[in-house]
């Protein structure tokens, strides 16, 4: 990345909560002039909130947002936009469901902003004509907006925003309501429009394909935090954690151990790799893209063997699931098909192994010691048999991922949770469960759950390791 020159928006340590629920946690991000930046993440990750903070519909609780501002005499300076209402900010928004004004026709919708500014009538007319041409909607001036198709409405919404010549265009999932074909066409057009206009686009989406196609820079967000910022190729080839790896493209995410520099163990084998500086015998996550596994009946330098479990044609390549000799399952893509049941040999080039530090190796939860065998945690009372004698007050509870029990019937658990995120790790699932108290607990399990399942959560008294915290550190 080049340095911090040409910055148009600088977001510094911004946090935002709604009714005790923290949606954005200490977000820092800068955006360069003319860039196409995509905020990418699953629903509820805070990306739309961040966009609304930029537009001025919301104010940050903490931190500040700086924007380049046209000062007197055309000299640009930088200012904190806190308290500046939306109508005075030098940016325009394309809303998710278009938000066209139904009582105005196409022309009046597009001219809305210019009329408010008191631009002369004939200038409005030439400018409306120009943007209509840009969005390929000439001859639609007099149409009722309700009579237009979704794609056409979207074009009008874009025209209505860009006619005001904003420095930054905010787009909130603008293509989400369109069908696939239309979406692909509009993606190309948006990219062309961005090049033609030369202004900054900030684009919000949950569609990773869209983000990879359109962006100069992708900002991957999850649970109110920025996970990774980078170019599409960086993010695809070098995801920094298992969330990013899973969210962008298809991937095998596996538990591994970094034996020493340039050597990693996973699926029961040692592999040479290019990563250094993790230390020795450190648990790590390993990401292997399905297209990076070299597969064949007999190959040179095979590293491990397996048996094809299933094979499906995907248009250009075949997608296979292979059971390895160590009992892991790998997703593999190849141009050649191997029938289910075929014994195969495989290898992975050192360059194609992406090693990531584990974000966590166990659950560490804030708790409160009630008496010698009870603690309060996740807003409920848990039985616990390992409390150091004499300890009381706030403490920390350590729980192994595999020691958290989930139940179909929520009544069977001490507390309830919702399956928030699922990661398949080759031989087990790593779940993120959002509990009723709003905290997250991570679970390793062999059972199959679906995203959104309501589950009962319980933990055996012996599996909670309490570390007395003296209430000093947070």
């Amino acid at each position: 990345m080049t340095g911090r020159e040409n910055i148009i928006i600088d977001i510094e340590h911004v946090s935002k909560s709604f009714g005790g629920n923290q949606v954005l946690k200490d977000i820092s991000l800068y955006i360069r002039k003319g860039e196409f930046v995509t905020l990418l993440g699953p629903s509820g990750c805070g990306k739309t909130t961040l966009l609304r903070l930029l537009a001025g519909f919301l104010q940050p609780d903490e931190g500040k947002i700086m924007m380049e501002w046209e000062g007197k005499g055309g000299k640009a300076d930088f200012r904190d936009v806190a308290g500046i209402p939306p109508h005075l900010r030098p940016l325009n928004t394309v809303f998710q469901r278009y938000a066209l004004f139904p009582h105005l026709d196409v022309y009046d919708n597009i001219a809305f902003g210019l009329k408010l500014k008191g631009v002369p009538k004939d200038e409005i007319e030439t400018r409306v004509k120009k943007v209509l041409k840009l969005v390929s909607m000439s001859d639609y001036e007099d149409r009722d907006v309700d009579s237009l198709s979704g794609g056409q409405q979207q074009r009008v919404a874009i025209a209505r925003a860009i006619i005001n010549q904003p420095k930054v265009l905010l787009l909130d999932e603008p293509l989400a309501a369109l069908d696939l074909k239309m979406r692909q066409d509009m993606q190309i057009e948006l990219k062309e429009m961005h090049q033609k206009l030369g202004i900054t686009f900030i684009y919000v989406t949950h569609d990773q394909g869209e983000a990879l196609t359109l962006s100069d820079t992708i900002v991957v967000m999850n649970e109110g935090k920025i996970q990774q910022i980078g170019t599409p190729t960086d993010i695809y080839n070098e995801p920094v954690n298992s969330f990013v790896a899973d969210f962008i493209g298809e991937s095998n995410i596996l538990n591994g151990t970094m034996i020493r520099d340039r050597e990693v163990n996973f699926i029961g084998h040692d592999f040479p790799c290019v990563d250094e500086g993790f230390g020795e015998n450190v648990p790590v996550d390993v990401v292997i893209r399905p297209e990076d596994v070299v597969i064949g009946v007999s190959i040179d330098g095979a590293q491990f063997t397996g048996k094809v479990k299933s094979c499906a044609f995907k248009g250009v390549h075949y997608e296979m699931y292979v059971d390895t000799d160590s009992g892991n399952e790998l997703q593999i893509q190849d141009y050649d098909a191997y029938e289910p049941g075929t014994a195969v040999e495989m290898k992975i080039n050192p360059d194609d192994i992406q090693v990531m530090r584990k974000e966590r190796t166990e659950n560490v939860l804030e708790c409160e010691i009630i008496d010698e065998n009870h603690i309060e945690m996740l807003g409920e009372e848990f039985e616990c048999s390992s409390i150091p004698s004499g300890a009381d007050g706030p403490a920390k509870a350590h729980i192994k991922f595999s020691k958290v029990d989930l139940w179909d019937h929520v009544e069977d658990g001490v507390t309830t949770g919702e399956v928030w995120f699922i990661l398949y790790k080759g031989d087990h699932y790593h779940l993120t469960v959002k509990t009723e108290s709003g905290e997250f607990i991570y679970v390793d399990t062999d059972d199959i759950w679906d995203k959104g399942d309501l589950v009962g959560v319980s933990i055996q008294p012996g599996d909670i390791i309490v570390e007395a915290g003296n209430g000093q550190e947070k």
Partner: protein
Amino acid sequence: MKKFFAQAYLWILLILLYAPIAFIAIYSFTEAKAFGSWTGFSGKLYTNLLTGNITGGHGLVQAIENTLLIALISASVSMILGTVSAIGIFHLRGRKRKTLQFLNSIPMINPDVITGVSLFLLFVFLGFSQGYMTVILAHITFCTPYVVLSVLPRLGQLNPNIYEAALDLGATPSQALWKVLVPQLRPGMLTGFILAFTMSLDDFAVTFFTRGTIGLETLSTFIYADARRGGLTPELRPLMTLIFIIILVVLGLINTRQGKADQQNHINL
């Protein structure tokens, strides 16, 4: 046979409902002073009414003027107040919104007599001299909830982003209100206005308690007093007939327009 009874039941009901109005309409075309005697067909009562040439009936014309003026002012004020309140209520969340919607419905359910007496006591307590002003204030009080009720559903149908879109395009909050929200809410506001107007038009109890002693008469209080003085002024018969017909026509117009709008929405879907 069963069908016959069902039909007969319906017709008897309709006749009972509409006979009194029909009688008034029929007897508006005769000159007899006493209601119920027929002295031959004549349109004289109508000419009297329209030219204002009513025997001892200066009060009637005055009452009609008062009624229309009060209805117009209170319906207009209610329309503005109600719309603003509806927008406010709509943007509240959860408990607060439910509570306010409940509070809004109380004045509609509350018996008029109680509304009238309580307002009367309030005005006395505040030392207001009762007259036009107090009647209009009272009418605004009980009309506003109807406007709120007719604007709220329109708000629910709006794209929640259009107000923000207007702000985003450079409109100040009040410009966004006038140029975007109000045009969208207009049908609801109009329905609310008509409801408020008719509620004000035929109110008796509340007006009776809040009009004070300055001799302010609206149509309803005038008719009440007139009937007790010894028989209705004959010109009231054509007046009521006309009001009934006007309402019928307005209702018919609204219904056909609504029908057309629904049909159009249907096609667009």
